[in-house]
């Protein structure tokens, strides 16, 4: 440890001196020690992590590099902090959206899991009852009902989107495809067209044919919105696809279905699964179409959060949000593993 510190001072001794000087200036200007602590944190950490530069690097270059690191680190913190900050907040014992003094001094009494219990209890007829607690929770708790709706709609629509999207991607990546550019841009357009416009159009049309405020209507809308993601991921997997494999299989007498089942599908499966996950998460996160098309029966988690944020803001929303963040971490891990597998299958990277 001392060795490491010695090295640090040896390489960046001057820089640390300047930092100390700047901190003193900050103290003199603001008159508080706290501000200096904040200043040291923001500018000290990137300096600590700055790597050794070539000996011939000028002071100007070192300084530019350092400022660049400070900016990049701040942007990364800006990106990740909001996602992480809601987790401790969701364990707040008080019904506030902010850190209480007790939480800051790590008082165990200031933390509680009451908002996580509230996810289960909210809407239940008798949260304290022992008899029939499970069925009461399963059928009446608002968030549980919303979660059931969300997962049902997302599963069905992701399945349909994956089947239709994979078929279309197979067609689009064939060299003989006529009007490829036009059809691709049509199939991707649900991602580009503002959601309000899509949802408005669907609201009118689905109402006129009587599927507004039904699961069918919401699922159709979510398939539409999920399809572009499937197309993009599956086409990406197919871009490195060796067409001679198909010809070889046909040469050996395999028909179209067997070729697809035994040759194409194993190779594009990672792309299909990540496409399906994209479609799944799109549906799980979608709220505009749900706002326009769904009725009370089809309330999903995002819909419930939307009204929660608008009407009675309570840390229950933060608890739900934390659970969703944990879920996205899991999904992200799965996707990363799939990506690696896909690259390995296509021989793009050694490991």
């Amino acid at each position, binding site marked *: 440890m001392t060795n490491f510190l010695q090295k640090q001072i040896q390489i960046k001794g001057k820089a640390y001196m300047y930092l100390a000087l700047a901190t003193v200036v900050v103290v003199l200007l603001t008159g508080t020690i706290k501000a200096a602590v904040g200043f040291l944190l923001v500018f000290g950490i990137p300096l600590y992590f700055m790597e050794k530069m070539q000996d011939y690097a000028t002071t100007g270059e070192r300084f530019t590099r350092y400022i660049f690191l400070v900016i990049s680190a701040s942007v990364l913190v800006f990106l990740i902090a909001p996602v992480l900050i809601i987790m401790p907040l969701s364990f707040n014992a008080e019904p506030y959206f902010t850190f209480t003094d007790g939480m800051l001094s790590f008082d165990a009494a200031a933390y509680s899991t009451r908002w996580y219990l509230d996810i289960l209890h909210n809407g239940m007829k008798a949260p304290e009852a022992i008899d029939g607690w499970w069925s009461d929770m399963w059928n009446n708790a608002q968030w549980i009902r919303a979660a059931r709706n969300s997962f049902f709609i997302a599963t069905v629509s992701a399945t349909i989107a994956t089947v239709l999207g994979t078929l279309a991607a197979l*067609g689009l990546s064939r060299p003989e495809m006529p009007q490829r550019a036009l059809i691709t841009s049509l199939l991707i357009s649900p991602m580009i067209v503002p959601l309000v*416009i899509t949802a*408005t159009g669907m609201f009118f049309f689905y109402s006129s044919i009587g599927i507004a405020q039904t699961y069918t209507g919401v699922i159709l809308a979510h398939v539409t919105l999920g399809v572009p993601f499937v197309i993009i991921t599956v086409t990406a997997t197919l871009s490195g696809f060796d067409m001679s494999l198909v010809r070889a299989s046909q040469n050996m007498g395999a028909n179209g279905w067997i070729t697809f089942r035994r040759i194409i599908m194993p190779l594009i499966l990672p792309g299909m699964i990540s496409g399906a996950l994209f479609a799944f998460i799109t549906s799980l996160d979608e709220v505009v179409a749900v706002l326009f098309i769904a009725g009370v029966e089809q309330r999903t988690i*995002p819909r419930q959060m*939307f009204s929660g944020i608008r009407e009675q803001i309570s840390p229950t929303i933060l608890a739900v949000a934390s659970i969703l963040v944990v879920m996205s971490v899991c999904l992200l891990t799965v996707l990363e593993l799939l990506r690696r597998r896909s690259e390995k299958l296509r021989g793009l990277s050694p490991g």
Partner: protein
Amino acid sequence: MTTANSSIDQADAMPLKEKLAKTTAIQRRRAFLLTLPLVLFLLISFVFPIGQMLFNSIHNNKVSGVVPDFAVAIQSWDGQGLPSEEVFEIFVKDLAKAKKVREVGRTVGNMATRINYEMPGSRSLFTKTARKVINIKQGPYKEALIKINEKWANPQVWLTLQRASHDISPAFYIAAMDLKYNEVGEVVQADELYQIYLKNFIKTLWLAALITFICVLLAYPVAYLLSVLPLRQSNLLMIMVLLPFWTSLLVRTTAWIAILQTEGVINDLLVYFGVIGEDGRIQMIYNQTGTVIAMVHILLPFMILPLYSVMKTIQPTYMRAALSMGSKPFNAYRRVYLPQTIPGLAAGTLLVFILAIGYYITPALVGGQDGLLISNLIAYHIQKSLNWSLGAALGAMLLVVVLALYWVYNRLIGIDKLRFG
């Protein structure tokens, strides 16, 4: 022997070309057939509904559907003075008939609302008259109607009725562009108080541009850092970009409410570090600032990812070459590095701008009053004020801008180049 040979040659040579054409045609058809189910699906679930909505923006039969005979009769009026006695008679009879209708969309109330859009304050004229018009048993109808309400002697009412009797009319686009018809039926600028749509449209474009610009500023260094770091470290930092990208939009918006509100984390920190006093807490949410901050956070990954994928392909040797030949670092960056990142910049900029101008959820939740964008106005007209044609007209204007940008994106970058992660 020779004849047989040549005939075989001929028999083979001719069909070969045809055969090729035939096989290509089959293959083209096969490729197309694979996309057909999805194309049909999207045509029904997506393209047709939007087309129908666009049709709604120019089509409105709230007058001709309620007083059909009158809608035909009024067309013969030349717009001078008041319409003739016969037109009045048809109007009174149609109105009396319409009073009994209960079908949604065909009531006198629907027509009154339609006219009210163009003549604010005229709604009660129709509903009240409709109640009394049953008592008019015989002519002269003109005098009888004016006796019920003297506003019927105002030619402007009849001009508006005549205009609104057309099922197809540009009236809602005129309203959407902050214009109106004046007393004699000319298109003029609307009153200051009613000029909201064009202003909001410009504000939306301006905020989207601002958000895109901030995204470029923030994304550029991060994308550069990710592209030059060794794979192991850059993968780790990439998680910091991808995790928010994968997190629910509502979760992120909620987080920003927790952070930015007056009792929130940022204000607490500022107070703690003594930058502001306890009573000087800054209002950072439920206004434009909140919208911009939250939207930058949500759209930033859409800028970082395309920039990163372009920067990854740039050879570091170019910069070293420029530097070794005596270029100043800034000049080398400006003339060698920056031009190579233009494709990524263009892709990110267009994508973020396109997504930003159509944004709805975040402004609706953290925008307060002045942070609302055009999408929120469209949703307001569709869900609350129920002026569907005006909402559709605003939507059509937004759609034109978005599709134009989409076309540019396709021409410059190609949508099939889009990748996630």
